[in-house]
C-alpha cells in the first residue's frame, strides 16, 4: 500500500483502474467526469497503455466492445447523457458476455439537464439500461477511498461473471478531494481469455463474439443460462454497509452522495435520541435485499433518501416485502439535499418533535 494522498474522485477512478491492470480507455469528454479522461490521456501513453478519445459515446462503447472482445481489461467513463448514448453498445456487450467497466459520474437530467450531482440514473443503471433481458453489476461508492477500492472489484467480478460492470458515481464524488491510499499496482491485465476474438493462431477453432441468435429457442436458452448466472450473483454478491442499525426504529436507505448527507442527519437525530440507522447499498445490482429484509421485523419505517424523484425506493419496497412502510425523500436536478432536510423527515417519521 502507498502513502495517503489527496485525490479528486474522478482522478482516483483513473488511477485505481490503472492500478487494477487496465491499460485500455476509450472515452468522450462530458462534465462532470472529464477529469477521468484527462487523467488517462496523461498516464496511459507513459505506461504503454491505450487512451483514445472517440468521436462520440456511441463510438467509445463500441471500442470498449472491440477491446473487451479481444480479451483485454477495458473501460470507459461518461456522465448521464453519455450513458444514454452508450445504451445500445452496453446491450450488445451484455449479450455477447464481454466484461468491461463503465463509469457514470451522474449529473441532473432529463435531456441536457444540468451538470450538478444527481442520482437520477438509478433505473437506467439497474433496470432499463437498454433493450433486452440483461443486467450489469452496479457499484455505488460513497467516498473517494471506496471508489478506489471498488474499481478493482468491479473489474474482477465483471471478468468472473463475464458481464459489464458499472460504477455509479456522481458529480459531487467525482469533483471532491479526499485522502486515499491507492492499492498496490497489479500487472497490466491483457491476458487473452479462451473465448476472446484475438486471432486463433491456427491452434483452435475460430471464436465468435456475438449477440445474434436467429432461432428464438436458442436465444431463450442462452438468456436463461445468463439468468442462472445472475441468480448466483444475487445470492453471493449483494453488498451493503450498516450504520447504527441494531436498535433502529427508522432505517434510512441511501447510497453514494445522499448516504453521506443521510449519515450527517442520522448523527444529528441520534443526538436528539431518535433511534435511526442506515443501510447503505454498495451494490445497486444485485440490490442488497437481504440486508434490508432482516431489519423489516424490528424497524417501524424505512426512508429512502435519493437525489432523484424516487427510484431506488421501489426496490426497497420489494425488498421489505410490504412488512413496513417505506417513505421517500429526494431532491433532484442537481440539488443536493441538506442534512437538516433529511433530519426533518426523520423527525416527522418518528412522530414529530421530541
Amino acid at each position, binding site marked *: 500500500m502507498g502513502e495517503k494522498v489527496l485525490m479528486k474522485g474522478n482522478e482516483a477512478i483513473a488511477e485505481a483502474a490503472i492500478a487494477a491492470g487496465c491499460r485500455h480507455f476509450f472515452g468522450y469528454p462530458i462534465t462532470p467526469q472529464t477529469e477521468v479522461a484527462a487523467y488517462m490521456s496523461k498516464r496511459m501513453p507513459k505506461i504503454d497503455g491505450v487512451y483514445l478519445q472517440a468521436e462520440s459515446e456511441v*463510438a467509445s462503447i*463500441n471500442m470498449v*466492445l472491440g477491446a473487451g472482445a479481444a480479451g483485454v481489461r477495458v473501460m470507459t467513463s461518461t456522465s448521464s447523457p453519455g450513458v444514454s448514448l452508450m445504451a445500445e453498445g452496453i446491450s450488445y456487450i451484455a449479450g455477447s458476455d464481454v466484461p468491461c467497466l463503465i463509469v457514470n459520474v451522474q449529473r441532473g437530467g432529463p435531456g441536457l439537464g444540468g451538470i450538478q450531482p444527481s442520482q437520477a440514473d438509478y433505473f437506467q443503471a439497474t433496470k432499463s439500461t437498454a433493450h433486452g433481458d440483461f443486467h450489469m453489476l452496479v457499484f455505488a461508492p460513497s467516498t473517494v477511498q471506496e471508489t478506489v477500492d471498488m474499481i478493482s472489484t468491479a473489474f474482477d467480478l465483471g471478468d468472473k461473471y463475464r458481464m459489464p460492470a458499472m460504477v455509479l458515481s456522481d458529480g459531487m464524488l467525482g469533483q471532491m478531494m479526499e485522502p486515499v491510499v491507492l492499492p498496490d499496482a497489479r500487472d497490466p491485465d491483457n491476458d487473452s481469455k479462451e473465448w476472446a*476474438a*484475438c*486471432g486463433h493462431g*491456427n491452434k483452435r477453432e*475460430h471464436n*465468435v463474439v456475438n449477440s445474434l441468435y436467429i432461432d428464438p429457442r436458442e436465444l431463450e436458452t442462452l438468456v436463461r443460462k445468463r439468468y442462472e448466472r445472475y441468480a448466483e450473483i444475487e445470492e453471493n454478491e449483494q453488498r451493503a454497509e450498516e450504520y447504527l442499525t441494531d436498535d433502529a426504529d427508522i432505517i434510512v436507505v441511501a447510497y453514494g452522495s445522499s448516504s453521506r448527507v443521510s449519515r450527517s442527519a442520522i448523527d444529528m437525530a441520534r443526538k436528539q435520541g431518535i433511534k435511526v440507522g442506515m443501510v447503505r447499498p454498495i451494490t445497486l445490482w444485485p440490490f442488497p435485499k437481504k440486508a434490508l429484509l432482516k431489519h423489516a421485523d424490528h424497524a417501524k419505517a424505512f426512508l429512502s433518501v435519493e437525489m432523484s424523484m424516487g427510484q431506488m425506493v421501489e426496490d426497497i419496497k420489494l425488498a421489505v416485502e410490504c412488512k413496513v412502510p417505506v417513505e421517500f425523500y429526494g431532491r433532484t436536478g442537481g440539488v443536493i439535499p441538506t442534512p437538516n432536510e433529511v433530519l426533518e423527515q426523520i423527525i416527522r417519521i418518528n412522530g414529530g418533535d421530541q
Partner: protein
Amino acid sequence: MAIKGEKPHALTDAPFHYCPGCTHGIVHRLVAEVIDELGVEGRAVGIASVGCSVFTYNYFNCDMVQAPHGRAPAVATGVKRARPDNVVFTYQGDGDLAAIGMGETVHAASRGENIVAIFINNAIYGMTGGQMAPTTLPGQVTQTSPYGRDVKTAGNPIRVCELLSSLDGVALAQRVTVDSVKNVREAKRAIRKAFEYQIAGKGYSIVEVVSTCPTNWGMSPTDALQWMRDNMIPYYPLGVYKDVGEGEQ
C-alpha cells in the same frame, strides 16, 4: 485465373445464406483467398456488421466479432488498439457504413485506424427487404422510395471513396466490382493491397465493391449485373481514389 475447386481455408464449410446471384459470395471468397495467401488467418479478426452480411461470422474461419449496426469501425478500432498484431477487417454494407455508421467510418478513416473496410455498395438495404440506402441512385425505386429517389426530398447518394479520399488517415480508397473475370481479379488485387497496407502499418483502407441485389432490385442475376453496369458504374466510377503507395511514408 485458375479455377480452383476447393474453398479457401479461411472460409468455413457453412453454406452461404445469400440469394442466387448475390455478389457477397464472390467477395467473401476473395477476402478469404487473400487471408490464405498472406497466411494471416491465425491473427485475423473480422468484424461482422448488420445487414445481409451479418452472418459473416459463420463464414470466415478467423476469429469474428459481431458489431451493432454501423459500429464496426469502432469495434474494429477497439480490437486493433488492444491487439495491434491482429489483422482486423470490417465487412459492411452501404446502410451500415454510409448511413448509420458514417460517423464511425469517417473518424476511423480520419484517425488512420490501421484496419481494412470491405464495403459492399448495392444501392439498397437487402436484409430488411429493399429500402432506400444512402447510395440508392436518383430516381431508383425502392420500398421506401416507391416513386423513385427524389433527391429534392431524400437527398443525394453518397460517393464514399471520393469522400474518404480527402482524409489524411486513408491509405487506400479504391472502388471495384466483380461482374467479370477481369474485374474480379482487380477486386482481389485491391483487397490484397488493403491487407498488405495494414500489415505494413499504413492506416485505413477501404475497398468499395459495387454490387448487385437481384432479389430486392426485382431482376434476374444477369439483368442485375447489366443494370449495375448501365446505372451504378457511371455514378460510382471504378478506380483508385487514394493510394499512398508501397514505399515508406
